[in-house]
């Protein structure tokens, strides 16, 4: 329990320290130390065996209620200020619902905080990855055009956010969960709007109203739970059965779909890409959006083998394909990453909702490695953006000559997302195996299986399309200048890569499967390549074949744009499916 307190409070303390001492060096030290401490704590927590629970002090509960109301009023104010009806309506709806629920909420019977296996696992992700991102953010913000205070505020906010995340993954009370959920919404709202220009503002508002839908459905879910089972605790809810249970759970999972930016809500996540890169990394791929699969995982004991669970895995699987496909039409690097995040979150939710032991384990593995790889990719994207001022993949052609290290990291990120022996690959591989084994139970899993297969293929297409842009370089003998990239950028990347490799190794060890180990063998070629390159001096260098002509060749990548009609059909379809979750929940 002390350790959990550390996880929650340390980031806040660190944030305060940062606010107090405006020294660059100190910022590094603080964030570095925080990272180290948090990771160690999270890891030791993870290895500790027992679950434990505790109550929040009563005063704190009151404080939370007050804070919640203030928060919602703030949303209302923002909606008023920027004249956004949707935000206002949703904020008012939440206020009313929240007020009503608090008035009828049963006195907590069980502990508000429950730290179980899942929470510990989430601590690992949040603190490991989040810490690195904070470290990176310090360097990143140096180049930002904002007042020094605002910069510190930014880093501080990221730290505070870490503690929010740490708390949310062990919240047992739905109301507490709701509060923290709204806090994360707030965080994305503020951080997306950080740059303060028109687009940021617009996208922030979009994120706000979409996420508030999540808030509303959570509240409705809680209301139903109170009415049906007289509880606001997850664990009690999950233990009960019959009645309106499925509806309540369905509503809660809908919140997950929103947070996970499943179609048709992917808009807010993509809009979020205007935020500074650490924000994208932290909120929109590595940690915050992981709430979505986390929530489904939490609910999975109930969801497993039900219609609701089925429909959620269907949505997840289809999102996996659709988002991968949509990503193919994009050319902004961060947007591509965003879409692929949406896709993979869909996959994770699908697997979590299937709810067999195996698929849950796979979903968790996917979560961990996705967080690591995506953070790596986002941070590298940030480097390219900061140092080379290119956001669009068309501008990144031949980047390998100009920024070999960063491109190396990006490629490594892609490799870790797609190829053996890395976690994501393994995850997908096992996912196919496990879904295939489920086929005998219900043929409908065939859809999930198909989506899985096709989606993976599309993602491969996507990543290597981008990789291609980075790699396309002219002949060896044509020199191009590189730019030194400061250690502040590189160290976080190295740390992440280390985590990925270590994770892969650890995972392989865990599997204790000889084949898996052998699978790692081909990777040797890739790592051996650079060393051989130096011995290639005796071969003649020549120019590419251009039909006998001279002159440089310029090409864009390939874009697969679905027609407007298909897109619209897609959105409608997903919208209907989204509503169907609630309907199915109500019916069963």
């Amino acid at each position, binding site marked *: 329990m002390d350790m959990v307190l550390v996880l929650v409070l340390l980031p806040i303390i660190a944030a305060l320290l940062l606010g107090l001492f405006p020294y660059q060096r100190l910022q590094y030290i603080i964030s570095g130390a925080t990272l180290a401490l948090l990771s160690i704590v999270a890891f030791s927590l993870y290895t500790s065996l027992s679950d434990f629970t505790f109550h929040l002090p009563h005063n704190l509960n009151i404080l939370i209620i007050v804070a919640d109301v203030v928060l919602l009023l703030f949303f209302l104010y923002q909606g008023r200020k920027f004249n956004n009806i949707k935000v206002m309506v949703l904020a008012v709806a939440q206020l009313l619902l929240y007020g009503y629920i608090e008035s009828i909420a049963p006195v907590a019977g069980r502990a508000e905080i429950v730290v179980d296996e899942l929470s510990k696992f989430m601590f690992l992700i949040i603190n490991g990855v989040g810490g690195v991102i904070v470290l990176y953010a310090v360097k990143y913000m140096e180049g930002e055009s904002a007042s020094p205070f605002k910069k510190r505020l930014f880093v501080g906010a990221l730290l505070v956010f870490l503690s929010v995340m740490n708390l949310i993954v062990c919240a047992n009370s739905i109301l507490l969960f709701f509060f923290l959920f709204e806090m994360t919404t707030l965080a994305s709202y503020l951080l997306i709007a950080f740059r303060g220009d028109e687009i940021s503002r617009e996208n922030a508002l979009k994120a706000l109203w979409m996420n508030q839908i999540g808030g509303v459905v959570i509240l409705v879910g809680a209301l139903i739970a109170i009415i049906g089972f007289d509880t606001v605790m997850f664990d009690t809810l999950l233990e009960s059965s019959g009645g309106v249970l499925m509806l309540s759970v369905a509503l809660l999972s809908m919140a997950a779909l929103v947070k996970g930016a499943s179609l048709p809500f992917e808009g807010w996540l993509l809009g979020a890409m205007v935020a500074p890169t650490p924000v994208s990394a932290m909120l929109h791929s590595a940690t915050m959006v992981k709430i979505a699969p986390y929530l489904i995982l939490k609910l999975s004991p109930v969801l497993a083998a039900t219609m609701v669970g089925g429909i959620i895995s269907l949505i997840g699987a289809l999102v996996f394909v659709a988002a991968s496909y949509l990503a193919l039409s994009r*050319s902004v690097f961060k947007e591509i990453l965003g879409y692929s995040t949406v896709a993979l979150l869909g996959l994770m939710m699908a697997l979590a909702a299937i709810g067999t032991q195996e698929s849950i384990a796979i979903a968790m593995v996917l979560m961990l490695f996705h967080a690591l790889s995506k953070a790596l990719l986002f941070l590298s994207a940030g480097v390219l953006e900061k140092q080379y001022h290119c956001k*669009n993949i*068309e501008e990144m052609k031949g980047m390998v000559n100009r920024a070999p290290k960063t491109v190396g990291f990006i490629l490594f990120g892609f490799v870790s997302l797609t190829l053996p022996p890395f976690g994501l690959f393994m995850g997908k591989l096992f996912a196919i195996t496990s879904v295939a084994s489920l086929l005998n139970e219900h043929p409908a899993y065939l859809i999930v299986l198909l989506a899985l297969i096709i989606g993976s293929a599309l993602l491969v297409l996507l990543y290597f399309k981008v990789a291609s842009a980075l790699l396309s370089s002219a002949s060896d003998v044509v020199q191009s200048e590189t730019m030194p990239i400061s250690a502040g950028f590189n160290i976080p990347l190295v740390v992440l890569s280390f985590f990925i490799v270590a994770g892969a190794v650890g995972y392989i060890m865990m599997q204790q499967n000889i084949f898996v180990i052998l699978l790692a063998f081909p990777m040797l070629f890739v790592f051996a390549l650079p060393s051989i390159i130096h011995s290639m001096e005796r071969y003649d260098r020549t120019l590419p074949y251009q*039909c*006998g002509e001279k002159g440089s060749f310029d*090409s*864009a*990548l390939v874009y*697969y744009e679905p027609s407007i009609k298909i897109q619209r059909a897609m959105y409608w379809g997903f919208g209907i499916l989204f509503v169907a979750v609630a309907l199915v929940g109500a019916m069963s």
Partner: protein
Amino acid sequence: MKKTIQIPLGSQHISLLEPIRFKFECENEKIIGVDADVGFVHRGVELACTRSFEFKQVGYVVARVCGLCAITHSLSYTLAVEKLLGYVANDRIKYLRMLMVELDRIHSHMLCLAHTAENAGFEALFMQIMGDRELIMDVQEAISGNRVQFDYISIGGVNRDLTPELVALTHKNLGLLSEKIDALIGLFDNNWSLSLKYKGVGVLSLEEAYTYNALGPLARAAGLATDVRAETSDFPYEALGYTMILESTGDIHARNFVRLREIVNSIAMCRNIIENLPIGEIQEKAKGKPNGEAVVRVEAPRGELFYLVRGSGQNMLDRVRIKTPTFSAIPAMMEVFKGAEYADAPAILASFDPCMSCTAK
């Protein structure tokens, strides 16, 4: 952000026999813009015909403007000079000249069909047509003494006569060939992959054919009824069973079909020619020096070939103007590429049967 790929095709490319350079501006693989450079083969034949060669030699030189329809070049030139000399060839000469031109048309059309098939990735069909084409090459070799450059026509007549053995050989090979062509027609019509590749691809509409002055099989595939054989009276084509072949869709398939059916028509004409060959001299003296200006149009395999010859009573001519079919077809060609897939570009290109060597002279 620019999202186009520039794909070069040529000047050296496996799908091209000749140097022509295209630069396709593509979105994904869809062509949105074309840039062509057609002048690689420019040798300066027009000037040489008036500076370095005497008018009697020029016939052999202009044959080397293009190896595919060398015979039409020498024919047009010879006709033009004969007009200036006031000489009219006798019927036997006319018939023999027509025979060679039609044989040449058959082999050229078959080559085009083969090349289009090859560029569509249908190697077996390429081999089949090339194999069948050898029948006609044998006939040509036997009649003229060479497979490609016939050097058969000279001012005042033709260089060789058609012996009875040759008549027999021609008859036999034409008979074999016409069976093969029937089989080919069935194949082109029914093969599923060919219809994916050919039908509705590379469409030149009738409107475009008029605007861009399309000619030859290109125009006839679009439904534009133009054929120099029907628009001149130098040769008695109608008497020998000439019919104009028209299609309407203007795609690769239609062009292939125009060619196939023209081959059938040409075979029939060749048979008529050798069956009704008039008796007469094959070489008569055409006296004098060319003086004045004459224009001649001849239907080459790819469309109308135009010669304008001006002389002033000397051994050297004043001007030999050669306007070749492909030269005129290029604007239409560029139009057709737009909107097509790059994957179809080589096949479309081959279906135009372009001839850069005559375009650039």
